[in-house]
């Protein structure tokens, strides 16, 4: 169930004899099955045995062997490392140089140092089948998925559609037969698997690509797409149930031993975050680069596709039908041949923006045949896109005023959102909405029922469309709509799904009917049995209002909750309130107050709470003025963003000008925020919950390990805070309470503080659930989001028995997990813009051990011995000295780059010297690759040696050597290693922590 991580662990546990020693039985996929599926060579042989074709391939354990293989397969060649997740380290090589590079990296990254070199089937049609098998060999296909992006793009980076839309029954059944033979041969005795196939569009030749003997991202998607909960059923199968013994929850009368049939179309669109990694190559290959996905359902492909695009929340960049803006035009070159060449390139090389290029090309009149040649996308899909562009043109020609019922109905049935239409027609979204009302075009909802309406459905799992009849059947119960967080992205991930789920549980406990709106298939909030009613819908004003209006037909008041889904629902709060929707909890006005820099400054001023001096600007001139007033360095960022998007620390006027010049989407409503940057300040996060009576309970005070300036999402943090004095702690508690009261917070609130020169400053207040809520809930044993929901539903904290500030049940460290390994060429240095894609928590009795566990969880094994290489900038030299001494005392050898080594030696630390990358060889980077170094401490040296540092950090990352880029981080690592050497690791259940302190779970 735990993806590749769990599978790899199972294999390791088996190989080490641990399973045998403790008589642990694996249920579900067995070790031999895992090996056949994961080991490319075994898989290929197994396929041969059962007569299923595979691409020509060979396995290599060295670069030499790999070069022999590629002689046979030719170019382009696919390189796939064995046992890595999401295709990490894989790639497509078009020439020998590329091949050597990718193969070398793949060999290194594979835990068994093995890669598969494979015949390219790039451009072939790509399909997946989600299949299940029980202990009696009963077999069902849950869902077929077609990748719109053909072979060559990782399925996680592909637009996919379910069901498969371009397969004849003959082709589909042949694939189904092969899938059955494969799962049987691989030997998945019970449970679900994902099998990928490629089909040559010219002659129908089919090959099996790979098989995952586990649930996967695609099975989550398939579960949401069909209403058949694959993981849940797989668990029962693993216990020995047969498929026909398990009932189908949705129809109740029929068993799970059937194949879902669907009467709608499902489209999944990946969400990338390349804007956060400007140096990253945006080309999509066999290595997954997206960070999240949105799923949309519609009665037709067009409808699902456009709903999917709008679910991505890309703002104006998301509009497919926009003519290119200035930037794009520049990139594409002057109109004419040069522009065409640019466009052609964008179509041939798949990137995250290819779909937009495709629509641009269609807009310019490029025909389906030509586009198929360039993209290899099946002509059927291209035809659909073409029809959308034609519809857009018609709409534009007619205009809103003269638009007939028939045309608007056609547009809405094709999935055009009110916002998109408004953009096309050059009118306000409200005008489109009014027109729609005038023409009586109302959204209806259909049910996802696994059976295409053959049986009655008992689960209100719904999607919107424009048809004749509505199946929403709203109840007359008191209800609360919870707005979810949309596709995962950096800065807004599963933490908000956690909060939404707990909000549902909380509201249910207070006797409300819960209604969930979300479009992220990777979440628990979009399970049909989490909330009472589920609408799988984009989180836009139009889509949310459609649900609200339908639910109101139950003749009861409908309230919305916007606090739990991150920034996404928050952005809708004011508009919803203006439309007459009751927003539960903290008022949208307070939310706005916290976001509006001027109002917020005034509030803190009135409260007498210090904050870094600041200002806002919408031009270079204004920015310079503000900077002059507050003094450099400054932190600059746009309004209303999450995850520190486009946030930077700026030290001089030139950089500030450049920033303002490059900033997009700046207006009087959304100015650039400029704050004085507090250098070397300690940063602290606080989550609190408040009720209507003004009682405020602090969930936790989290001390960041990295200094202010590194995004809080990228910083490790710890509770309880080890480095804060009682005086600061009580100041923080006092400020938090006063701010919560002033903002009339009902529910959750997060405050970020910085402590510098003995003064506590407020950096930011977010009156909503924050990223750290799940972490604190786990550390304290109190489900904060649930408490908040119940408070919002009218309970007081006293009634809930939550009156004291919470205390953690141990020492808990939260650490971020980064995606750098997927982005060759990207620097791993941390800054104010968040880059992590996940997080882990480690718990223990001491900070050191909790940090060790957090690092382990994040995939970093801290060394117990070996060489520590230190290379720090001049400012950090003084502070690194005690750390170096500490490591030396623990028996580590110390190595330094020239300047650092000289300083350390001068202060009595025995230290050898290593070259920096540009000084000679073997350099520090070489020594890392040669495994001579166990730990790197490297703080940035400023612009001139930037590339040098970057090379070191990348080398360390690729070699799996921990590389610490802050002094505070290094100090934490030292303490951790000390703990590791003296205490040793232990294992404890979270429940045991709670029991020890008598926490209520």
């Amino acid at each position, binding site marked *: 169930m735990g993806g590749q991580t769990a599978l790899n662990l199972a294999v390791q546990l088996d190989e080490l004899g641990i399973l045998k020693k403790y008589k642990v039985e694996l249920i579900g996929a067995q070790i031999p099955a895992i090996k056949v599926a994961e080991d490319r060579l075994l898989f290929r042989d197994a396929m041969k045995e059962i*007569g299923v074709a595979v691409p020509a391939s060979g396995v290599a354990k060295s670069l030499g062997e790999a070069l022999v293989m590629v002689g046979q397969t030719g170019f382009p060649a696919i390189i796939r490392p064995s046992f890595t997740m999401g295709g990490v380290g894989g790639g497509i090589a078009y020439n020998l140089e590329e091949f050597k590079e990718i193969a070398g990296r793949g060999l290194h990254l594979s835990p068994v140092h093995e890669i598969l070199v494979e015949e390219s089937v790039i451009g072939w049609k790509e399909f997946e089948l989600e299949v299940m098998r029980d202990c*009696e*060999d*009963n*077999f*069902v*296909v849950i869902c*077929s998925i077609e990748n719109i992006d053909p072979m060559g793009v990782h399925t996680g980076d592909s637009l996919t559609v379910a*069901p*498969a*839309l*371009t*397969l*004849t*029954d*003959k*082709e*589909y*059944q*042949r694939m*189904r*037969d092969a899938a059955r033979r494969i799962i049987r041969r691989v030997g998945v005795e019970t449970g679900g698997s994902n099998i990928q196939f490629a089909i040559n*569009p*010219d*002659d*129908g030749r089919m090959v099996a690509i790979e098989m995952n003997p586990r649930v996967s991202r695609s099975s989550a998607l398939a579960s949401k797409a069909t209403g058949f909960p694959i993981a849940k059923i797989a668990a029962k199968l693993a216990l020995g149930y*047969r*498929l*026909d013994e398990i009932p189908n929850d949705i129809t109740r*009368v*029929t*068993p799970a*031993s*059937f*194949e*879902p*049939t*669907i*009467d*709608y*179309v499902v489209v999944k669109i990946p969400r990338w975050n390349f804007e956060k990694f400007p140096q990253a190559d945006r080309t999509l290959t066999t290595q997954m680069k997206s960070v999240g996905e949105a799923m949309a359902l519609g*009665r*037709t*492909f067009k409808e699902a596709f456009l709903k999917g695009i709008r679910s991505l929340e890309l703002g104006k960049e998301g509009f497919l039908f926009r003519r290119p803006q200035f930037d794009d035009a520049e990139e594409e070159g002057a109109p004419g041949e040069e522009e065409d060449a640019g466009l052609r390139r964008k179509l041939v090389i798949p990137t995250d923006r290819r779909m937009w290029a495709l629509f641009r090309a269609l807009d310019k009149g490029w025909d389906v045949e030509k586009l198929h040649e360039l993209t290899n996308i*099946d*002509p*059927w899909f291209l*035809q659909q896109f073409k029809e959308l562009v034609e519809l857009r043109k018609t709409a534009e020609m007619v205009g809103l005023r003269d638009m007939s019922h028939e045309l608007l109905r056609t547009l809405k049935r094709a999935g055009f959102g009110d916002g998109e239409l408004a953009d096309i027609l050059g009118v306000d979204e409200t005008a489109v909405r009014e027109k729609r009302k005038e023409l009586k075009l109302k959204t209806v909802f*259909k049910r996802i029922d696994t*059976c*295409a*309406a*053959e*049986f*009655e459905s008992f689960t209100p799992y719904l999607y919107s469309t424009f*048809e*004749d*009849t509505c*199946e929403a059947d709203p109840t007359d119960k008191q209800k609360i709509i919870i707005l979810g967080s949309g596709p995962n992205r950096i800065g807004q991930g599963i933490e908000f799904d956690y909060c939404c789920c707990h909000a549902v549980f909380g509201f249910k406990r207070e006797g409300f009917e819960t209604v969930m709106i979300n479009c992220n298939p990777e979440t628990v909030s979009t399970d049909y049995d989490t909330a009472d009613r589920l609408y799988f819908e984009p989180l836009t004003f139009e889509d949310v209002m459609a649900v609200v209006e339908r639910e109101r037909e139950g003749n009861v008041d409908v309230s919305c909750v916007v606090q739990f889904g991150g920034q996404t629902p928050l952005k809708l709060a004011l508009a919803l309130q203006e439309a007459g929707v009751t927003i539960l909890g903290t008022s949208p006005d307070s939310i706005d107050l916290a976001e509006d820099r001027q109002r917020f400054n005034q509030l803190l001023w009135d409260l007498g709470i210090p904050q870094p001096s600041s200002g806002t600007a919408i031009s270079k001139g204004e920015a310079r003025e503000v900077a002059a007033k507050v003094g450099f360095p400054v932190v600059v960022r746009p309004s209303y963003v999450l995850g520190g998007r486009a946030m930077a620390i700026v030290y001089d006027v030139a950089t500030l000008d450049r920033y303002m010049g490059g900033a997009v989407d700046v207006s009087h409503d959304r100015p650039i925020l400029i704050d004085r940057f507090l250098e070397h300040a300690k940063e602290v996060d606080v989550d609190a919950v408040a009720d209507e009576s003004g009682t405020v309970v602090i969930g936790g005070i989290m001390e960041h390990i990295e200094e202010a300036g590194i995004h809080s999402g990228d910083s490790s943090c710890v509770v309880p805070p080890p480095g804060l004095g009682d005086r600061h702690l009580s100041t923080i508690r006092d400020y938090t309470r006063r701010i919560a009261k002033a903002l009339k917070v009902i529910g959750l609130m997060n405050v970020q503080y910085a402590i510098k020169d003995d003064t506590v400053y407020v950096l930011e207040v977010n009156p909503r659930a924050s990223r750290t809520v799940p972490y604190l809930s786990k550390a304290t044993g109190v489900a904060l989001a649930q408490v908040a929901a119940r408070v919002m539903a009218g309970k007081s904290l006293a009634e809930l028995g939550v009156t004291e500030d919470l205390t953690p049940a141990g020492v808990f460290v939260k650490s971020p997990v980064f995606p750098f390994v997927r982005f060759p060429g990207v620097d791993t240095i941390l800054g104010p813009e968040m880059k992590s894609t996940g997080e882990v928590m480690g718990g223990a009795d001491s900070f050191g051990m909790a940090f060790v566990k957090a690092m382990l969880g994040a995939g970093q094994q801290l060394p117990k011995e070996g060489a520590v290489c230190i290379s720090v900038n001049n400012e950090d030299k003084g502070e690194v000295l005690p750390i170096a001494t500490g490591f030396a005392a623990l028996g580590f050898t110390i190595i330094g780059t020239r300047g650092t080594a000289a300083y350390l030696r001068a202060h009595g630390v025995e230290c050898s010297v290593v070259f920096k990358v540009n000084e000679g060889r073997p350099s520090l980077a070489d020594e890392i690759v040669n495994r001579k170094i166990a730990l790197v401490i490297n703080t940035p040296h400023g612009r001139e040696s930037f590339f040098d540092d970057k090379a070191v950090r990348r080398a360390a990352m690729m070699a799996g050597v921990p590389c610490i880029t802050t002094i505070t981080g290094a100090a934490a690592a030292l303490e951790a290693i000390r703990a590791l050497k003296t205490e040793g690791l232990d294992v404890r259940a979270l429940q045991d922590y709670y029991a020890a302190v008598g926490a209520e779970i």
Partner: protein
Amino acid sequence: MNAILALEDGTWFQGVSAGAPGATSGEVVFNTSMTGYQEVLTDPSYAGQIVTMTTPQIGNYGVAGADAESAGPQVAGFVMRDPSPVSSNWRAQGTLRDYLTRNNIVAIGDIDTRALTRKLRSAGVMRGVIATGAADAAELVERARHITHMEGSDLVKDVTCAEAYDFETSLADAVTEASFGIPTRRTKHPLKVAAYDFGIKLNILRRLAAYGCHVRVFPASAPASDLLAWGPDGIFLSNGPGDPAAVTYAVRNVRRLMKGDVPTFGICLGHQLMGLALGAKTYKLKFGHRGGNHPVKKLDTGAIEITSQNHGFAVDPDSLPADTRVTHLNLYDGTVEGLRHVDKPLFSVQYHPEASPGPHDADYLFQEFLDEMEKK
């Protein structure tokens, strides 16, 4: 061009014409298969019926000669949510729209097929009319109310072959390989199978041929003696349209054939006719089984098969004589899916082991038929 689908209960749907112009009438049913619209269109068992596909995107991969289950479309009319104007597949020989138009099949698109399906599910299948162009909905509803009921209708006579013929084995190979791969077993000696054509699907003939059988196809009206005179190793009773109880001549012939000991295998209508010949009764289902995802349990092993289904009538298990047992059950609604005679080599299934469209899970039944024949 606009089109209207009107039902006998007074509801009607406005859509667009998606095939030939004109009007057509029949029993409105729905099919839940996600692939295989051409196989559905050309299955003679759909004679007299207006078929609604519940999956919305129809026509995407066009039409191809090899995907036809008979000489051409057999349905009375066709209903889709979103018909494709283009075809995209390496085997495609044309678009669905042209195919429907050329074969004079009236079809409607762009209607709320789910609303229609839910209606048929709760009220049962209904008579209906599709008319293209300017049409009056009320008038069409009235017309729908005057269509002959499916119960009591012998539709077999319209779809069976005129004369006996030998199935040309070579026709089967390309299609078989495209979809099934090579069968695991061929008969040791070519076995002669006499098949009654009540509206036989081509893939049944292809499957029998692929297993090495020499199949001679007889018209539904051929006397049993004609089949026996050929000296067959086995007798096959095919699928077909309409009410089995109305095909009295076929029931009589089957009863005669069963007096001997020639192994006999029936599919769909063939299964119902065998049931009737054995003395059981048949009845009409509320909305039938049409699709490719129905789970059927093989009672002797407990194995589940995902089956291809297309029937509106079923054999009443309470009416079965003592010498006949139920071998397969539908797990959706517990209806009879298979029968076997206790002493004689007679067996039949309600669903479609030849698939096309649908899963191949039940292909083993052809092997069982072979086994029975080889025992002799």
